[in-house]
């Protein structure tokens, strides 16, 4: 899959996924005059700053008013613009879900909703700011695409791809630096999941930066116990690439899902829905275990709440009874 060389090098380059969003916006600013950016008082941390400086006429500071921001974006889109609206996932789409539902999705308005600081790895800010429900509340909305890219390179591709997609999209990314393990050559298309590592004993489906932890776990499981895991990275949660996932499940007969999100309603939920309908196999889910987070260092939190590569390894052994 043309991933980075020296994938498991301890010195692999680490960059926050949101940086890729900032770069994607700059590219779009140059290439598409219809792209406008709205931000709710989080210009720097959502990486809208470079766009705001280079394209000040097309940048709108909304202040701390996420509901108004969503509605304004609908108005821009109904006038032919392609608005990106950025804030933290807990506010956008957390605070403004009704506006997303009616002003945007019901009108199929071409709005790109950007949820930064998704996941437990937000860290010291604590539970209020750890977006762990955003995929559940967006996945149920008609017309809306839901995307969770895995590193800054893929985030840039996804940012450009959702601008080119006509219709509302939600994209989430993380706060922390995470390994850059895809490359310019790694394929990315909305609605497609990719087999990042082939295997035969179990399938692991993941999204977001945790896909790297999954690859690490799969590698270690193979080296330590000769367990062969197929790793499917599914950056688009909706529409889910059911074909790729079912095909792998037919081969391995066991599926693990991994996401930095509540264990209900997100990628795990989507995979369970698809498999139970098309090819029921045993599934285990790794994610936030139906609880709120707390303050702490990102790595500590991933460890405490069960989303580290060690937990993924344990979950696979439970799934396979080995």
């Amino acid at each position: 899959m043309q991933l980075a060389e020296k994938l498991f090098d301890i010195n692999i380059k680490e960059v926050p996924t949101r940086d890729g969003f900032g770069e994607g916006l700059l590219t779009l600013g140059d290439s598409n005059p219809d792209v406008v950016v709205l931000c709710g008082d989080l210009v720097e941390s959502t990486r809208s700053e470079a766009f705001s400086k280079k394209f000040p006429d097309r940048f709108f500071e909304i202040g701390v008013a996420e509901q108004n921001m969503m509605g304004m974006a609908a108005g821009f889109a109904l006038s032919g613009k392609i608005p990106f609206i950025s804030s933290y996932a807990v506010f956008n789409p957390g605070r403004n879900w009704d506006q997303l539902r009616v002003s945007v999705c019901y009108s199929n308005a071409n709005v790109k909703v950007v949820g930064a600081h998704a996941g437990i790895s937000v860290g010291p800010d604590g539970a209020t700011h750890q977006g762990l429900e955003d995929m559940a509340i967006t996945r149920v909305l008609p017309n809306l695409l839901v995307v969770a890219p895995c590193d800054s390179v893929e985030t840039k591709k996804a940012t450009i791809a959702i601008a080119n997609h006509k219709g509302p999209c939600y994209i989430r990314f993380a706060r922390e630096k995470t390994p850059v393990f895809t490359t310019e050559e790694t394929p990315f298309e909305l609605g497609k999941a990719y087999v990042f590592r082939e295997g035969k004993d179990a399938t692991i489906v993941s999204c977001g930066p945790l896909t790297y932890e999954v690859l690490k776990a799969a590698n270690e499981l193979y080296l330590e116990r000769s367990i062969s895991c197929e790793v499917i990275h599914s950056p688009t949660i909706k529409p889910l690439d059911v074909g790729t996932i079912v095909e792998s499940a037919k081969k391995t007969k066991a599926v693990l899902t991994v996401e930095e999100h509540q264990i209900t309603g997100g990628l795990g939920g989507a995979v369970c829905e698809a498999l139970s309908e098309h090819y029921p196999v045993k599934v285990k889910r790794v994610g936030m275990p139906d609880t709120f987070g707390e303050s702490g260092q990102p790595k500590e939190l991933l460890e405490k709440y069960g989303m580290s590569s060690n937990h993924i390894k344990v979950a696979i052994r439970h799934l396979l009874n080995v």
Partner: protein
Amino acid sequence: MSDIHEPHGVHKLEEKANEIRTSIIKMLIEAKSGHVAGPLDMADIFTALYFEILHIDPENPLDPQRDRVVLSNGHICPVWYATLAHRGYFPMKELSTLRKLGSRLQGHPHVMELPGLENSGGPLGQGLSQAIGMALSAKLNGEKHRIYSLGSDAELQEGQTWEAAMYAGNRRLHNLTWIIDRNNIQIDGFTEDVMPLEPLRDKLEAFNWYVLEIDGHNFDEIIGACEHAKAVLERPTVIIAHTIAGKGVDFMEGKYEWHSRAFKGDEAKNALSELRTLGGKIRSEHQ
């Protein structure tokens, strides 16, 4: 822009508003549910907009240069639908499909369905924000059309309204005119009993809006205020249109109970027969 836009005398507008009110009541009889007080009290403002004020062309409903009407309190859509049909956006006979399966006339407006609609709406407080996005988009494009954001008084109780009001006031969006239907009613009672809005003018002025107050049933005042707003360049204009809920049907006027109830027994027949004819009776009750 279009030659369809011809000036009408006030008398003709009053006649048209009465036809629209008649259509609204007939639609609601047929639908057996829906909101009645708001649509009746906004009939004069919709008539003034679509038959006098707006630069629009029903033959070309997506003309980028058209004036836009954004409706925030979507539940009064019978008046929007009736006005659009009377203005020629779609066949009059379609009005009888309101709220029925497969209809383009949804219980609350759906922008993808019907020519002439500019937004979807229902959950209160969402319209002004959308109008702001459209106004900014027009400015970005250097377009001269205007955005008219229509909403109710009670939906001012929604926080989003004030987020939007703060934005537009501070950004001097002078291509935006906000018309508030001050009919003083909401589902549970009179606004000043349920959750008072006064002093409304002071609030809006404090948010940097240029405030006009009019009799929302007086065509000269409606048209005059919308023209006045065009000349105000330093601030967006809000028109507080004082209206009488259920305007035109004696037994409904001013009664919050008619916000959203359906007709029973002979009420519909009586409403149609009581719907006031012209000859001064539509004239303002504030005078």
